[in-house]
């Protein structure tokens, strides 16, 4: 199976603390892979390492065979990676449409931007279509998280990274979000790396998972295998 993203023995340092220690993960093309772990386990650091936002002192990161470890963030994105960042990292003073346009920043043709709006975003988020000219900061929390995902979809990525999509959402919205992530993966064929604290939700929709604790991968496997792991059962079930 063709691989999309591979991290090999990655160690990062922040100040004197090692945030990730010898982390290796692999995301195959077309798959939906989850990265689980509690608060402070190093999940955000792992994403930052991929995006070139923290210093990797050891190890390698490959995207489609290319070593991307010294790439700056915008170059990593230009390879075909999109991210729906944690929290409400939408641009609060821009309109919904302007936010979505920023998601397709690397696209020059207006027609292509229109096409992506119609084919990638509106089918999943009809609500955003009704609110195109609204200032994004005035949307409800659920709508903002839709915009966050929609904006990342506008990049028409090969790999889409979701950073804590369930964070701060009501249970019913978590279920809705999980469905959308599943559809993005299964219908559009977009490879997904889902970083989540909510293991229940993540294991429901992913093909493979990694469990991160104190900066180290302590378990990995299919959802069925992971659910049997003692350490995860203790933490979650």
């Amino acid at each position: 199976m063709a691989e999309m993203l591979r991290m090999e023995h990655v160690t990062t340092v922040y100040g004197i603390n090692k945030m990730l220690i010898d982390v290796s993960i692999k995301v195959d093309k077309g798959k939906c892979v989850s990265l689980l772990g509690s608060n402070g386990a190093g999940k955000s650091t792992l994403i930052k390492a991929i995006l070139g936002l923290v210093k990797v002192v050891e190890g390698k990161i490959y995207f489609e065979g290319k070593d991307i470890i010294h790439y700056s963030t915008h170059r990593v994105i230009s390879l075909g990676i999109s991210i729906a960042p944690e929290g409400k990292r939408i641009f609060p003073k821009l309109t919904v449409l302007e936010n979505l346009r920023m998601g397709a920043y690397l696209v020059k043709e207006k027609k292509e931007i229109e096409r992506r709006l119609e084919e990638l975003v509106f089918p999943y988020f009809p609500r955003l279509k009704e609110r195109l000219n609204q200032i994004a900061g005035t949307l409800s929390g659920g709508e903002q998280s839709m915009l966050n995902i929609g904006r990342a979809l506008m990049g028409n990525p090969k790999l889409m990274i979701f950073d804590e999509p369930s964070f701060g959402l009501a249970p019913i919205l978590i279920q809705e979000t999980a469905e959308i992530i599943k559809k993005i993966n299964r219908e559009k064929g977009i490879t997904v790396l889902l970083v989540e604290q909510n293991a229940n939700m993540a294991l429901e929709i992913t093909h493979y998972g990694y469990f991160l604790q104190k900066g180290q991968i302590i378990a990995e496997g299919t959802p069925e295998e992971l659910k049997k792991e003692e350490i995860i059962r203790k933490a979650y079930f």
Partner: protein
Amino acid sequence: MSSTSIFLQIIFNGAMLGIQYSLIAVGFSLFFGVLDVINFAHGDIFMLGAFVSLTLINVTGLLNTSGATYVFLLILVIILSMIIVGGLGVFFERIVVKPVSKGPTLMSLVATLGLGIAIREAVRLFYPRGSETKRFPELLVKLFPGKEAIEFKGIILRYDNLLILAVGIIVVILLALYINKTKMGLTIRAVAQDAEAASMMGVNKNLIIDVTFFIGSALAALAGFMNGLYYNSIIFDMGAMAGIVGFSAAVIGGLGNIYGAIVGGFLFAMVESLSAALIPRGSEFMTVIAFAVVILFLVFRPSGILGERAYERV
């Protein structure tokens, strides 16, 4: 002179200065937006604008030409001085302002103040007889020989001042269109709101910072040219006061908001102009009064006229 015409003259004089202050203040707001830094060297960029345009007037031999050549060369001088000083602004941003912007606020404060002093002293030392006041020629008189000004409803309008007002208004409109209607403008706004999120969309942050410093510095250069034209004299330390006034105007308007900066610039100038005219010996105190207004703003509305209130930030 009737009281209406006196009032009109005050407004007109205020607008002259207001457009200059606004163009400086816009730079402060733009830089604060994309780099979270207050660039105290910006006043000296304004001064460079005045000196570069004076140099270009001499080098091109503008004053020895006439007719269409004259108009062409005048436009060339204005645009070229904006491009040169814009480029210098990017250069200073790369070697001083951006490197210190990640450090503590105090560091960027000291570094940009130091940069300003370095620019100022460089002009004093290396410009021919740089410590003296330089005469800045009147420019539009050449096109209307024998008449220096026109009278309109009892107020006197110099041609050069009309040029300042016309160019200023056109540039402010172009700037607003650029920020609101173009992709680059959208990107600048996005970087100002969340630079890291913007880079996650594929934005090259450094490029946007360069563009922003080019625009801000070019606008300050234009203000420097206007200031020379308005007072007909320029001096190496003219940027010190202009920088403080421009910064204050940006603060009154709400730092980071370019429309606020424009409003703030005009407000500051109008207070100066009104106090010079209406208060006995007011011209001696006009700047003091204007800064008193700034202080009142800091006390009663610290986020500025158009600045966001705290709850909107959450």
